[in-house]
């Protein structure tokens, strides 16, 4: 009998996975060697373990649906703010990083290589401020190169990878709070642009995309658990208040009406003005 070195097993198993999925006629429409899924499970009395980790959808997931329902003018949604100095507070940098990546996703929808290039460079500058430039540089260069080649799928992948690299690096440095703020910044910018488009051309189908109470609740818990100086900063407090207001609207029973969407748009805009967009002159 031929024995394989143990180090070969992962590679062999991977090869078997691919071979299995490549079998002609395999549609995946059957269970191979396992019992069928139960028709129903009792979520209130689940006999197992809930996984704590929340994976926040990237803006591109919701943009993909919006594109199927409508054809928004994505170029009008790009609003890359002027570079402004809001200080070196890491929580603000992390939020801004997430929002910049979301701006990149908007620019990909718009198929706008010039904006993507600007965003790729800004992402790298921000990564330098966060001390993560070496991890982000390869992604930043790939984003710019892929946009020049108009390989939009690749740009999306790299934007997702950029955000993930930054979050993973922060988590390795035991900076989980910052990692969550990156996700929050991205979600907020994505939500804001979606509400703008839906407010401009309302439909119930589109409004349903904002039904995300679980994510809002997750972000509220994240901010409530924050410790240290950042937790008491005016920006973080304002964002926490904003999330509570968003939650109050979304948690209301029934469909989200056009007026609700406009409120969500304005609230999310106000939250972004705490760290990303310039505040209107009268609000300063």
């Amino acid at each position, binding site marked *: 009998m031929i024995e394989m070195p143990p180090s070969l*097993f*992962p590679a062999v198993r991977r090869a078997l996975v691919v071979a299995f999925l490549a079998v002609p006629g*395999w549609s995946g429409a059957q269970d*191979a*060697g396992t019992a069928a899924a139960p028709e129903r*499970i009792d979520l209130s009395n*689940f006999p197992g373990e*809930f996984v704590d980790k929340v994976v926040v959808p990237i803006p*591109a997931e919701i943009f993909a649906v919006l594109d199927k329902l409508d054809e928004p003018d994505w170029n009008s949604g790009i609003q890359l703010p002027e570079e402004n100095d809001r200080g070196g507070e890491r929580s603000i940098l992390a939020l801004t990083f997430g929002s910049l990546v979301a701006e990149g996703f908007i620019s990909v929808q718009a198929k706008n290589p010039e904006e993507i290039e600007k965003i790729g460079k800004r992402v790298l500058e921000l990564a330098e401020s966060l001390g993560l430039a070496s991890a982000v540089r390869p992604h930043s260069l790939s984003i710019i190169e892929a946009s020049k080649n108009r390989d939009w799928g690749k740009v999306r992948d790299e934007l997702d990878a950029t955000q993930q690299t930054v979050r993973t690096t922060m988590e390795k440095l035991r900076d989980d709070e910052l990692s969550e703020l990156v996700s929050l910044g991205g979600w907020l910018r994505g939500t804001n642009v979606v509400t703008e488009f839906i407010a401009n051309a309302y439909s119930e189908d589109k409004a349903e995309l904002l039904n995300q109470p679980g994510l809002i609740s997750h972000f509220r818990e994240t901010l409530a658990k924050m410790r240290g100086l950042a937790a008491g900063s005016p920006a973080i407090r304002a964002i926490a208040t904003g999330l509570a207001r968003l939650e109050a609207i979304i948690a209301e029973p029934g469909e989200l009406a056009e007026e609700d969407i406009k409120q969500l748009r304005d609230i999310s805009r106000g939250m972004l003005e705490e760290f990303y967009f310039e505040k209107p002159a009268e609000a300063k």
Partner: protein
Amino acid sequence: MSSRPCLLAIFLAVLFLLGGVVHAFVNEAISLALEAATPYVEQGFEVREDNWSGEVEPGKPLLIRHQLFRGNEYWFWAGTSWPGATIKIDIFDSEGNSVGLESFAKDSFAGVRALPQKTATYFIRVVASYEKKGKGLTKAERGANDPVDGVGEFPGVLDWGVVYGYR
């Protein structure tokens, strides 16, 4: 050979072994899940970089909460790397009703497809199982050539990983 290079060599060897064990235990499950996803990428699914992973007792179900959007189509893929272990993955709506449209499960990897009927939080159930024990294991399933005590024996928990894609 002086003692310093010798100690360094031992230290590096231990580090390498430990690194290998940890790497295999944490990343290999995700790697398998991603391998299962590969054919679907060609069908237009965009696979997310973020994922879920960890360790679990065999047979203990796990439940992942996740936001899905009506209008998108999703595949969730799961993997476990322990030789001889199996994994299953299903998806349910917030009422606990199964919403998986198709699925597959083959030893160390599995997948389920969903087309959400509404935008909401859904629940992905993952069960990693392992039946064999002790002498029932082949050398291959022990995962090593009996190198040292404790290495290659079933540790009592299984690694698991889940990735997803949308289009």
